[in-house]
């Protein structure tokens, strides 16, 4: 049973999609049936995924994986059907299985056309996303990574907003181009190691770190990092995100922000750090700078957005910048915080998109100017909105705080000096500068969020249409509740999360910081701990 | 020996006829020039001690293929080419390039080094390879399979030529399985224009048209019904 658990998790939603499709040909099929089938299967998937928590608390220690299934797949090229979870992927799988039923529930009345295709796409996507996080074979990983693209493309393109075509094509082309380069990298790895199996490649690298020449490692790191940076998205590659987020239907935005972006950071942790540690060190200054630019830029652009959804989208750029910053601090604090922030972002931003979707469903507009004083007709909505926004901003005792605090604490404490070479001249970038700059991002976040809240929720009701809006119904409260509960729980008691991921994070960290002392970054490093 | 003047004479004739063929704008004159090329080549084959090929050249090329070409030209009454700017522009650089390479190759061949003289020495001898007997012998031993496969080729050409050149029945009106939403085009007096490839709707309209004009035959009615399916 143990070894089939992950396969079952991948297959359950796929079977659900099939069931939705088959039901469509039944004579008594009604449009309302599909959402029930989809909800049933995704809830079942969530329930099954909870079994993953049965893994021991210190899972991932010594680089081991749990619930491993390893079968030969394409023998001629040495590809395996190799699945497994460790402390990193465990939480991301759970996040996925939680967000999918929530977003299906959120589409209950919002989706009014082509229900069959919509719910089938959602379930197919869930399969692919779970597959991404549990694959331990590069080819399999790539397969799921790309497969998650297609249903998302349809979600945006068919059920999206006014500029859905533009957004869908931009989304697909950006991510497909990045992942194609990664494919070239994966094939190059196959050429070097004769296998696609992650564990085997890692073992070979640990046995002989010089198996890959520095030049190859350099290009391979770039190929992988490029694909993942687009997905995250890192600062200059982020332009697809606001469009995709804004035009996607609510469920699509939730999944996009909650899970798809995490594939990028997860990929960096899993592949770039573990396979090319030395290059990760060398590239750290670049990534740190881009992350900080992303944090500040995302926050500043969010501030001037007239569209609520676009504002939330830009806040994602800022938040994901924190994640990247934490990862490249190479400290336990920072990296743990990065993982924690991934979960936070999934929960908080997901909830924000849900809330935005709810008022959009009522008013069919997302312009801040169209709202104002919503707290009067919709007190419950206003309360939950404020609560979620505060969690996203990072109010102490809520989840956002823990993540951002850990990241900044970790970054401050690296004591590393990032060294740049511009021609012959070296520039030093002290980490406290980086941390201070990133910290301003938190302040900006408070500014844009609170300002938005003020304009949308408080003050006088300026638009007559807003006066008679109905408050949240039970379904909407029900789907927000688990997320709100998580915000509080993760803010107050992070230990169960952190202790399960510690060993795995430590594995990755050890791989990056230990070893040879070559490279710009570690040459200038002075451990202060 | 006479071979050098013979080569010069027939070689010049071949090139001249070939140039004339390309220069002519009337296809009929081109065809006649081409026959000139074929005949001069046949003569060159004689100088190369290949009497069988020379004979076949005259019989098959000049006798059969060119007669067919001339026949088609006469049958279709092909007009003269009109001079106008070249529209196959993309082929022009390719053509110039190819021609340059080929001319370069011809020049190169004329100055072939080394081995040429040895081969030329072989060429001095009288040879029996060009005789019908040796060709026939080889054709039924070593080249048996290609020879047999040629029969498939000729069969194919037969079937193909007949399929293409045979006149077909009237244009089809409708076919089962075709649905279409385009209304048929009506002429000024309400008649239906039937174009190749027209389908159910046209068929139906045509059937109606025939019914109205009292021309309805059983077949037309059935056509209409098939369109409904």
């Amino acid at each position: 049973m143990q070894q089939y658990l992950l396969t079952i998790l991948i297959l359950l939603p796929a079977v659900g999609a099939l069931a939705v499709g088959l039901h469509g040909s039944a004579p008594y099929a009604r449009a309302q049936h599909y959402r029930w089938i989809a909800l049933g299967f995704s809830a079942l998937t969530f329930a099954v995924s909870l079994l993953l928590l049965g893994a021991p608390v210190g899972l991932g220690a010594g680089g081991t994986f749990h619930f491993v299934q390893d079968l030969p797949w394409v023998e001629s090229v040495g590809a395996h059907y190799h699945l497994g979870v460790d402390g990193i992927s465990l939480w991301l799988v759970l996040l996925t299985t939680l967000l999918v039923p929530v977003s299906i529930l959120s589409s209950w009345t919002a989706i009014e056309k082509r229900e069959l295709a919509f719910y089938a796409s959602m379930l197919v996507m869930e399969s692919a996303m779970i597959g991404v996080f549990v694959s331990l074979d590069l080819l399999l990983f790539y397969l799921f990574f790309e497969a998650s693209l297609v249903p998302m493309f349809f979600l945006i393109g068919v059920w999206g907003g006014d500029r859905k075509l533009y957004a869908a094509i931009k989304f697909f082309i950006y991510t497909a181009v990045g992942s194609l380069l990664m494919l070239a990298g994966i094939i190059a790895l196959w050429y070097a190691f004769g296998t696609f199996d992650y564990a085997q490649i890692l073992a070979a690298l640990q046995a002989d770190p010089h198996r890959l020449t520095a030049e190859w490692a350099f290009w391979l790191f770039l190929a992988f990092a490029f694909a993942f940076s687009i997905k995250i998205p890192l600062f200059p590659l982020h332009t697809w995100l606001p469009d995709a987020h804004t035009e996607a239907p609510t469920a699509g935005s939730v999944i996009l922000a909650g899970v798809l972006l995490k594939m990028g950071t997860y990929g960096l942790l899993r592949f770039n750090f573990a396979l090319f540690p030395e290059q990760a060190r060398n590239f750290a200054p670049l990534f740190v700078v881009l992350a900080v630019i992303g944090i500040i830029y995302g926050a500043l652009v969010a501030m001037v957005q007239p569209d609520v959804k676009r504002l939330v989208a830009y806040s994602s750029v800022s938040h994901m910048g924190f994640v990247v910053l934490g990862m490249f601090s190479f400290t336990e604090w920072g990296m743990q915080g990065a993982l924690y922030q991934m979960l936070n972002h999934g929960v908080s931003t997901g909830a924000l998109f849900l809330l935005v979707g709810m008022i959009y469903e009522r008013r069919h507009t997302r312009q801040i100017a169209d709202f104002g004083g919503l707290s009067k007709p919709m007190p419950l909505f206003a309360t939950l909105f404020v609560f979620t926004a505060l969690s996203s901003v990072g109010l102490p005792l809520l989840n956002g705080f823990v993540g951002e605090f850990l990241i900044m604490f970790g970054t401050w404490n690296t004591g590393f000096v990032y060294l740049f070479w511009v021609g012959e001249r070296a520039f030093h970038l002290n980490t406290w500068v980086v941390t201070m700059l990133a910290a301003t991002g938190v302040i900006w976040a408070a500014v844009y969020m609170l300002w938005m809240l003020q304009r949308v929720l408080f003050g006088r009701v300026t638009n007559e249409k807003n006066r008679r809006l109905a408050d949240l119904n039970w379904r909407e409260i029900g789907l927000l509740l688990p997320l709100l509960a998580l915000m509080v729980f993760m803010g107050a008691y992070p230990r169960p999360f952190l202790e399960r991921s510690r060993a795995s994070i430590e594995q990755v960290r050890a791989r990056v910081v230990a070893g040879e002392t070559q490279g710009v970054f570690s040459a200038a490093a002075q451990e202060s701990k | 020996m006479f071979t050098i003047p013979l080569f010069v004479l027939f070689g010049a004739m071949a090139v001249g006829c070939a140039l004339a063929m390309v220069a002519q704008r009337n296809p009929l004159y081109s065809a006649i020039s081409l026959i000139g090329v074929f005949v001069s080549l046949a003569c060159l084959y004689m100088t190369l001690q290949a009497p069988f090929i020379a004979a076949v050249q005259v019989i098959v090329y000049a006798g059969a293929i060119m007669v067919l070409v001339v026949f088609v030209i006469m049958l279709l009454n092909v007009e003269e080419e009109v001079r106008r700017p070249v529209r196959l522009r993309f082929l022009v650089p390719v053509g110039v390039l190819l021609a340059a390479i080929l001319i370069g190759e011809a020049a190169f061949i004329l100055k072939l080094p080394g081995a040429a003289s040895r081969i030329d020495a072989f060429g001095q001898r009288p040879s029996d390879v060009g005789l019908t007997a040796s060709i026939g012998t080889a054709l039924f031993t070593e080249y048996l399979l290609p020879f047999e496969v040629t029969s498939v080729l000729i069969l194919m050409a037969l079937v193909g030529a007949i399929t293409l050149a045979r006149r077909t029945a009237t244009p089809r009106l409708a076919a089962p399985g075709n649905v279409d939403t385009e209304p048929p085009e009506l002429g000024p007096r309400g008649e239906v224009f039937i174009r190749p490839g027209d389908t159910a709707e046209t068929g139906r309209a045509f059937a109606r048209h025939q019914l109205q004009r009292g021309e309805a035959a059983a077949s037309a009615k059935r056509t209409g019904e098939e369109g409904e399916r």
Partner: protein
Amino acid sequence: MIPLSWYLALSAVLFTIGVVGVIIKRNVISMFMCIELMLNAVNLTFVAFSSYFGDVTGQLFVFIVMTVAAAEAAVGLGIVIAIFRNRESLDVDDASVLRL
């Protein structure tokens, strides 16, 4: 005696004339005749090699090429007749239905 290279060069010249003809001619039948010229140039090469070598293979090849040329002629002229039935012109520039 004539050197072999003379024959080869003559053949290359004829082939070139054929290639140029195919490219500059507008009339389908003329283009077809230029292709026939190219095939004849090849035949000359084969026969020249064959008879200078004293090896029969080249002449067998010529025999087969002639068969192929005849078959191509039959099909090609069939196509020409089919197209002429639908359109009273053989000028390829009149190929207005398809872009070229």
